[in-house]
């Protein structure tokens, strides 16, 4: 049982962030893409917490609360949009939305 090493958590958070990013890029289902965004935000949360641990501060923890709130709002809007899209296209597949292009 080794001592707590902040860098481990950092690595984890970065990895999670990248996973979220990859999901956002690769997955075709809009709902999954929404989740990926949430994942990225949460990865950042972890990051914040880690740093505030490093600095022996509370700011990080507080920030997390803000971020969660924002994330909730964001996903609400996102879902709304997805629903609207589903009403028009009967689909939530990101390949369906490529009308606007050069």
């Amino acid at each position, binding site marked *: 049982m080794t001592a707590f090493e902040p860098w481990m958590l950092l690595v984890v958070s970065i990895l999670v962030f990248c996973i979220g990013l990859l999901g*956002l*890029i*690769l997955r075709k289902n809009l709902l999954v893409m929404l989740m990926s965004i949430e994942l990225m935000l949460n990865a950042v949360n972890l990051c914040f917490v880690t740093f505030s641990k490093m600095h022996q501060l509370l700011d990080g923890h507080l920030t997390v609360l803000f971020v969660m709130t924002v994330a909730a709002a964001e996903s609400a809007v996102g879902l709304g949009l997805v629903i609207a899209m589903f009403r028009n296209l009967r689909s939530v597949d*990101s390949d369906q939305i*490529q009308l606007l*292009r*050069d």
Partner: protein
Amino acid sequence: MITSMILFPLAGFVINGAWSLWSARNGTRVSPRVSGSIATTAMVAAFMAAIMARAQIPATGSIEVDCFRWFSLGSLSVDFKLRLDALSSIFTLVITGVGAMIHLYSVSYMEEDEAAGKYFAYLNLFCFMMLNLVLGGTLPQVFLGWEGVGLASYLLIGFWYREEANVAAGQKAFIMNRIGDLGFLIAMFIGYKYSGSLDLTTVEKVILPAGVGTSFVLLIFLACTGKSAQLPLFTWLPDAMAGPTPVSALIHAATMVTSGVYLLARLSPVISQSATGMAVIAGIGAATALITAIIACFQRDIKKVLAYSTVSQLGFMFAACGVGAFGAGVFHVMTHAFFKALLFLAAGSVIHGLHGEQDIFKMGGLKKKLPVTFWTFTAGWAAILGLPPFSGFFSKDEILHQALVSNSGSAWLFGVLLIAAVLTAFYMTRLYRLVFFGTPRMDQAKFDHAHESPVPMALPLVLLGVLSLAGGFAGEPVHLAHPESALSTPTWVIMIVSVIAAAIGATIAFRRYSVSEVKAEPTSDVFRIDAVYSKLFGGGLGVIASASQWLEERVVQGMIRMVAAVTDLSGNMIRVLQVGSAQAYLLMMIIALVVMVFYFMKGVV
């Protein structure tokens, strides 16, 4: 007095010009007689003025009349001033005198032409410009006259402008003269550069460094070859015969074409500085005299023969100038003015009599029909052959003599000129014989119709006949102009030689064309010079022009088109990235981000 001399023709020009323009606008017609008499009066008045002015000239030196400041810029200032001395006064007398006669002649010659008013306006304009040329006190003013007479000649050659050929002839004359004028321009620049002024009095005296001097002389001479139809620029003069005959007499025989000689004589102090230049002038002069004399032997058109003969005679004058005998040259200018004008006018009266027939092989036996014309022509013929005591005898023999004895002369020069003289005798006699003797070679009706010209045409003939007979004795005054080359009485040898030469040429011609049945000879431009030119320069210019056109369309315009195309293309290439898929955008952005982060960090860490 001098001023009035140039103002009379100007007035004539303005009056006739305005009048004929106005009537042309209203579709009315200018009466040839009235406008003709206006023009003639102007010229006679100018002649009187010239005589009086002549009287005022001090024994040596000149009268100068400063009219106004033409333009001044920095150190340069050019006045518009008239300068009359012995030299210019000879020319003024010839121009106004012969001019007056030819105007008079034209009055009835142009009677039928509906554009007579225009004609006389142009004729006056010419005389005005010509007087500017010989009276000009500054080089730009001479140049004004120089180009002005070119303009007048362009207008009068192409006077019957409905014929493409005439217009073409006029343009040819103008453009070939322009080539010469270029020489004049650059010569002026050189003169200004070294003398700091453009006044003739200054430029005459300027001493130029050797190389520059030669180029100056050659440039001036280039101008002369253009204006006086010397090799290589002589081909326009024969074509210039497209104009009315009196024009050929005045402009292309008596006055304008001799202005080259005037210019050389005027600048003789500078010219004589360059031996090379002088040699070139002499050589070209002699060569022209010979070559054109040869060509003249192969012409059928009566005016063409006279035209080539004019060129050849001018060659004599330049040869004289080339050997430093400017006086002789000027003297020959004067006599030549008399007899060549006479010959042309006579030819004109022949053509007039035959209703436009110009082919000497369609003439003959006109002696009876046109007595006045015949006798006056005879005088001219004798003069150009140089038979004593006719005017041509004095001037031509002196030229031959100078060509031999003057320190820059040589046997070669003399020989060439002598041969030219023989040829002159030949073609003139050929012409003389074919026109006036033998059996008429035109249809009977035309022959019967042939008539002597009315008095206004006959009178100038007679006057000029007298002048060509007696003009030679006026040699003395000429040499006041150039005391340095005083009249050296030609030695008897040369006199006899030249007379014999003339006799030989004449006899050959007489014998050759005395046969009862003369067979027509084809006209031929012996040396094909004209054809060569039109290929060389016409073609050459065409090629260059086409080349630049290609450059314009392909390169200049092409560049513009290319820039436009490239811009558009690259725009479309960037557009390709806009695929429309959010995830693709995200991917591209991430790639960009990674790349930039990489470089950014490389810079920082």
